[in-house]
């Protein structure tokens, strides 16, 4: 046994170049499969954990998924606004415990700017009913104050007291900046692992103030200074959407219907959990296709290894005859192949896992920044260990093919090989 293991290792080392590439191809396919699985799970929990305890989100009528995406995930844009009158009328209803208005449309160096009020810091919840907390500073209390998410602070290296210039629209451009009305950072929120981390929060009045002298996306001829803008009536005329918490959840569906049937303007209310599930349903098909594809990539990797093993069979006949001559049984020959294959696949799998973890560490900040998916790096779960066992088992089965051929050859050849 010890002899065989030594033979396998030395023989493998002797053919290390071709084995290296086989191991790499398995490593890459394992990395892909585990990566897809990881992202799938993380995306799901990241999605589900983004918002909590909000009973309804109300916006202009349109696609429910779209409303969820722009209001919670800061992805995409609203097609229409909600007038301030409708907002005030609805949140005045008895069933409603709290509400958070949201006004979107501007950005700061790639991060979305969201206008809201201080209720946001009090009522918004994410994950398992966690509330927002301040890492530093305090909420905004003034027109030109801003509270930034953790990632904004980290990425742009902002401290309390720094000034922020908000760009009009979502693409940062020199000519469309509200550079005459800078905001001062008064607070930095603690890390949440949700899109909140990548948001610049200002008051609704702030949003109103920077747009006072703008018309249809460009500056109007009448410019107002920051101080002058303060004195204008900064009551917003419209907001993008608002979140609502109810006193009693039982009323959720009734209120949802009431908002949908609201006469003054076409509105829509979604239940975040239900729409999240709906969104997830549309993604799940894609994600399963991806998983199946990566499964096939892994099988292709194993088949590549099989090809490699089969192609070396003939050159190794002499080796097998020598081993037979010194007393190896054909079972030993079979075992040699099984051991070598398991060794290759084991190494490939381990390298694939290392590859995945280093990739995760490297891409984690980018994934959060670009796609809002927060990947927590955890140990492999039971499912992944199970996959490990399945792949090793598969490798044993694959190795039986060249193994049994070599077994038969060595029975036929005996000690004499005419190669």
């Amino acid at each position: 046994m010890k002899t065989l293991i030594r033979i396998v290792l030395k023989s493998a080392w002797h053919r290390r170049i071709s084995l290296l590439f086989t191991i790499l191809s398995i490593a890459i396919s394992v990395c892909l499969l585990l990566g897809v699985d990881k992202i799938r799970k993380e995306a799901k929990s990241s999605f589900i954990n983004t918002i909590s305890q909000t009973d309804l989100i109300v916006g202009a009528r349109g696609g429910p998924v779209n409303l969820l995406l722009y209001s919670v995930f800061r992805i995409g844009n609203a097609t229409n606004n909600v007038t301030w009158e409708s907002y005030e009328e609805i949140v005045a209803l008895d069933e409603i415990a709290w509400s958070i208005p949201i006004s979107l449309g501007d950005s700061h160096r790639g991060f979305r700017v969201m206008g809201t009020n201080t209720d946001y810091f009090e009522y918004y919840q994410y994950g398992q009913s966690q509330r927002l907390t301040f890492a530093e500073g305090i909420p905004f209390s003034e027109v030109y104050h801003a509270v930034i998410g953790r990632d904004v602070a980290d990425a742009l290296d902002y401290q309390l007291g720094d000034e922020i210039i908000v760009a009009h629209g979502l693409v940062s451009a020199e000519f469309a900046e509200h550079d005459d009305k800078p905001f001062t950072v008064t607070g930095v929120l603690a890390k949440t692992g949700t899109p909140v981390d990548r948001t610049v929060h200002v008051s609704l009045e702030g949003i109103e103030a920077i747009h006072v002298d703008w018309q249809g996306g460009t500056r109007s001829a009448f410019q107002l200074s920051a101080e002058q803008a303060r004195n204008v009536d900064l009551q917003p005329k419209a907001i993008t959407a608002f979140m609502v918490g109810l006193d009693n959840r039982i009323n959720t569906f009734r209120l949802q219907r009431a908002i949908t049937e609201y006469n003054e303007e076409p509105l829509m209310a979604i239940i975040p959990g239900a729409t999240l599930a709906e969104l997830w349903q549309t993604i799940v098909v894609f994600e399963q296709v991806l998983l199946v594809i990566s499964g096939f990539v892994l099988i292709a990797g194993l088949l590549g290894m099989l090809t490699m093993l089969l192609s070396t069979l003939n050159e190794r006949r002499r080796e097998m005859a020598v081993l037979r001559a010194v007393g190896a049984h054909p079972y030993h020959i079979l075992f040699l192949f099984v051991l070598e294959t398991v060794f290759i696949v084991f190494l490939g799998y381990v390298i694939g896992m290392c590859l995945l973890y280093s990739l995760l560490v490297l891409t984690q900040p980018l994934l959060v920044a670009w796609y809002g998916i927060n990947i927590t790096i955890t140990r492999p779960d039971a499912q992944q260990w199970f996959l490990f066992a399945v792949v090793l088992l598969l490798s044993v089965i694959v190795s039986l093919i060249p193994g049994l051929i070599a077994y038969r050859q060595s029975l036929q050849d005996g000690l004499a090989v005419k190669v």
Partner: protein
Amino acid sequence: MSATPIIHLKEIRFRWPGQSADFLYIPELIVNKGEHLFIQGPSGSGKTTLLNLLTGINVPRSGSVMILDTPLEKLTNIGRDRFRADHLGVIFQQFNLLPYLSLVENVQLPCGFSRRKRANAGDMDATALRLLTHLSIPDALLDQPVSKLSVGQQQRTAVARALIGNPEIVIADEPTSALDSDNRDRFLELLFQEAEEQESTLIFVSHDRQIAERFTQMVDLTMINQAEVAE
């Protein structure tokens, strides 16, 4: 001197799968202790087949292969492999060595498959080195990859491997056919010297009649093979 048979073949009949007639039929062949047997015959005369029977790779259709008082045909497949590992050493025509093992590891290889040889060899490193020195392998080559050795040196290393652990029988299948005459004589010299020292019986197959005179016993396969060759 009372003759103890080391090898005793009796009424051996063998045919390959799919053949309708016997390929090999040897009524009797005896090799006694202390003797060395030279087997001669042109290719196709059944040399390989005979060696396969002697080494327990194949079993005869009928008849008995007694080696060291053990009837090989009565052993299981694994039993015969173990018997070969314990009591036989084998030298091929060429490519005897595994390219990925060092010289010493190649020599020690049989000890990995046989507890008996391992016990006989004692200190495996010392024994391997002693054998290699006896077989005139320069020390400078010990750390070199096997492929750096000349064919003659490779064949002598194969002798060391066949002899390690004191097997009773050493089977050599045309081991000199790849050597020039100088190397051949030197090879034979050393092979005999070491085999004598260990009291191993040599079974030597070759078509080179010049070698035959060194042996105490010689058989011509075409003579002892009584099978009617079906054309």
